[in-house]
């Protein structure tokens, strides 16, 4: 089971955090602070895994962003690395060559995508197409809403509602 996933920039700014079990806010901040500085201090070419406290940490850098997750002792490190990669692929396809800014400005979307992909720290759907379809379906619902919204506000403007 994955315990948590963090996305942070090379400057150490956290862009996305997902915690799969109940940890207090203070503890989260502490873990984040320590882990971010630990990962940032590692040189490229080093192994992507490290033992840290009770966690096995698996991380990988994609352009300016570090994707970092903590898994349990009995979990498979290589597969966790591919969980990260698949997530990146999904983001990439969804945003169209994703960059850090996409995740900053559409953080809520990133969370929605993650919820379709991972749930309770386990992989829910490993098919890229199926995850994207689920997210796009809910986007479609959003657009329907927006159309309704647009019409309504025009009506309101004209005082016709």
């Amino acid at each position: 089971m994955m315990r948590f996933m963090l996305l942070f920039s090379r400057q150490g700014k956290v862009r996305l955090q997902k915690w799969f079990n109940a940890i207090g806010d203070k503890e989260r901040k502490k873990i984040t602070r320590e882990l971010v500085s630990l990962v940032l201090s590692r040189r490229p070419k080093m192994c992507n895994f490290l033992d840290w406290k009770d966690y096995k940490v698996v991380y990988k850098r994609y352009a300016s962003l570090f994707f970092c997750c903590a898994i349990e002792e009995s979990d498979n490190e290589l597969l966790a690395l591919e969980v990260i990669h698949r997530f990146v692929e999904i983001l990439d396809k969804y945003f169209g060559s994703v960059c850090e800014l996409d995740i900053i400005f559409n953080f809520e979307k990133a969370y929605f995508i993650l919820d379709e992909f991972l749930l309770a720290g386990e992989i829910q759907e490993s098919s890229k197409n199926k995850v994207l379809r689920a997210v796009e379906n809910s986007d479609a619902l959003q657009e329907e809403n927006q159309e309704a919204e647009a019409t309504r506000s025009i009506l309101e403007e004209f005082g016709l509602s």
Partner: protein
Amino acid sequence: MPTVSSRGDAMRGLAVFISDIRNCKSKEAESKRINKELANIRSKFKGDKTLDGYSKKKYVCKLLFIFLLGHDIDFGHMEAVNLLSSNKYTEKQIGYLFISVLVSSNSDLMKLIIQNIKNDISSPKPVHVNLALHCIANIGSAEMSEAFGQEVPKLLVSAHASESVKQSAALCLLRLIRTLPDAMTYAEWASRVIHLLNDQHMGVVTSAASLIHTLSQLSPGDYKGCVSLAVSRLSRIVTSTYTDLQDYTYYFVPAPWLSVKLLRLLQCYPVPEEPAVRGRLVECLETILNKCQEPPKSKKVQHSNSKNAVLFEAINLIIHIDSEPNLLVRACNQLGQFLQHRETNLRYLALESMCLLAGSEFSADAVKKHRETVINALKTERDVSVRQRAVDLLYAMCDKTNSEEIVAEMLAYLKKADYAIREEMVLKVAILSEKYASDYTWYVDTILQLIRVAGDYVSEEVWHRVIQIVINRDDAQGYAAKTVFENLQAPACHENMVKVGGYILGEFGNLIAGDERSSPLVQFNLLHSKFHLCTPSTRALLLSTYIKFINLFPEIKQTIQNVLQNDNQLRNADVELQQRALEYSQLSSITSQDVLATVLEEMPPFPERESSILAKLKKKKPASVQAIEKEEEKMKKSPPSIENHVNVPKEVPANTVSRLTISNSVDLLGLSTPPATPQQSTNSLLVDVFGSVDQPVAPKPESNISKFLFKNSGVLFENNLIQVGVKCEFKEHTGRVGLFFGNKTGNQLQNFSASVSMGADLQGKVNIAPQKEAPTQIDGGAQVQHFVNLECITFFSGSPNLQLRYQHASTPQQVTLKLPVIINKFMEGTNMPAADFFNRWKQLGQPVQETQKIFQANHPIDTEAAKTKLTGFGMSVLINVDPNPDNLVGSGIVKTKTSQIGCLLRLEPNKEAKMYRLTVRSSVGEVAALLCTMLEEHF
């Protein structure tokens, strides 16, 4: 304007706010901007104008963004909850996101939230159901478990739910089970859940496999049917081509996620017994190993990673099975190739997996062939985490033949090792050098070198240990004295060296005193030259060395007395030093040479004990303990090394001196292990019996039998008329129950009768015979006795009934009680060494023989109290078996007339979570289940 997703510019205000924040030049500017925004949102939420859904959504989303930046958010929860009931999907979605991320900080809205989730979970729209399920899974609180524990599994096995709903439901359920494991095992759903492994939809199977994995760990018996299904599903995957599985093929590897999950699931169970299933499983594993030899289908790292992920998991399963020598050796060879792979990740994992293979008798030799490669890794790897793995593996593969080389390499590496791992390395070197020493000079040299190279990381256990061994080995003493003397001559030597040197010269300095280069005075001056540089504890030790010198070398008595009587000592601010100096100087001046010689005689050999260093390593690295334990078992079989001669408790040297003041050998031996407390239960019940006399307690009928689980006597029942006391004795399968009926009134209780009866469930299982007829009346204020003999024929659950009837003031009274005759009363504790325990534990490995419960602690977690309870329960608490000192293991035998039922128990507290995991194994599954249930509520 920064790039904003082209997909519907949903919340313009949010995007503007985010870019404002990004444009802030300083932390202060950012805080200012955020506070402005918070004030704005607050006024909007408080304002008279009701906000429309869109604005609410936008503001809630801004709050969320601010929270994720690391600021506290103390409002807006209500608005978010309002969004949940919006009929617009996107508003609902933001509401749920906010709740999922921030709910813990404000839970008085929980009822409302749960109500909203209830509405959505029963919605006809799958997207709404999914949102609700995701939210439950994200929050995963106990409240959620209680509210939806029944609802979610229905969705999972429903014929109508869509695939995506089933996937979410499976993982959502998994999260709820993790939160409240004992509330839900879903035995009644087991067969339907297991069959999800056959589902057409690979996504459903993947989610379900995670769920089944957890359920199998919690209640293996109910889910063992999954083994054959998992094997056949796995077999279909590994034999498929990469085009078969379409979307589920990942870089030419068919369904790696599902494969790994299935391989992990199979590690919950012993090897399947049916030859067909077993054969198929072995075939799968062979196929996976074969595929690694094939040329890669892609050069992408994703291809090799996912292929190897499956391979490593297969190797884990092969190690778990541990009975297929061919597969084990093949696995080892495969890992050997990875040891030299250019990918750091693979080298790291290969070292890690090989550590496990080193523990299997079939592959241990194959692992040892890679010694040079591993030593090379230690020297050349650039990444400390890889080097750490190499150290672990070297430790695991060390044996008599290669120990000198491995220890030498580890010592060499220690000089440049990272600080974080030095202490652990020191422990490992100390253990290996002791375990495999064929001659003591090597051992002594190694430990002294450890102190030289990494003195700061040499813990007390390590230097205590070398002293213990030297004291117990006559042939090592002269060499040790000579070597420490030489080491002390270094201009700067570590304080630990002074301690070891001081102690050893104090005992054996005479062995080298013949040489004038190390004459008594030279030895003394050498030690005393270090005295002022040392901490008080070392100085105290040196003072003891000095008094020992007075005995060994009367010729330097005067010199030493001068030191002892110096004001620096006699008026030292440190009380311990002052006292020692005073007492030693008195001792040396008052007593005769004979008395002095007796008091300061050479230390007697230490009794044998488990190495305290090993215990320390276990404590430090519980994860690696299994490998070490296997190692230990092997050691016991192999010819004796020093370990078998000397096994000593820790803390000894530091305490040596106290014998002068206390002259008590108990303290000398430093019995650091807390004494077992079997007596405590009897003490406490005496208190209980007496206490209840003057404290009017009125236990409810029948309700207090559970307190007798841990004791044999006490007040069984009391009201304002009568008190019933009980005192039981049990021996093997027989017992005697003494009942004491006390009349609390001034009048006679008439028509008294006391009859013991058994429910249908006890018939034939327990025989009961009263020794005499029960009394028929009890005088006012009097107490009468009544004894009942009983015999346990076979295992039973429940307890016999005691029915009392009597008449008081012409009113007939009737009371029915449970007698505290419970199955555990027929249990006797058995002591056994760790190795036996682990053997038996393994033998009772079938799922039906084990019951495990995970539960919230009902009492504060206290190891000693728990020990007392277990002892009172009838188990022997085994010391030094479980590497984690917080965990308790116990064993006992339930003795009935017809059979003897062995029971083993393990109780693991999680202090942080205030939870326990209790595992009971027994040759009879029912007994395990019953004992587990009985104990659960008492911890």
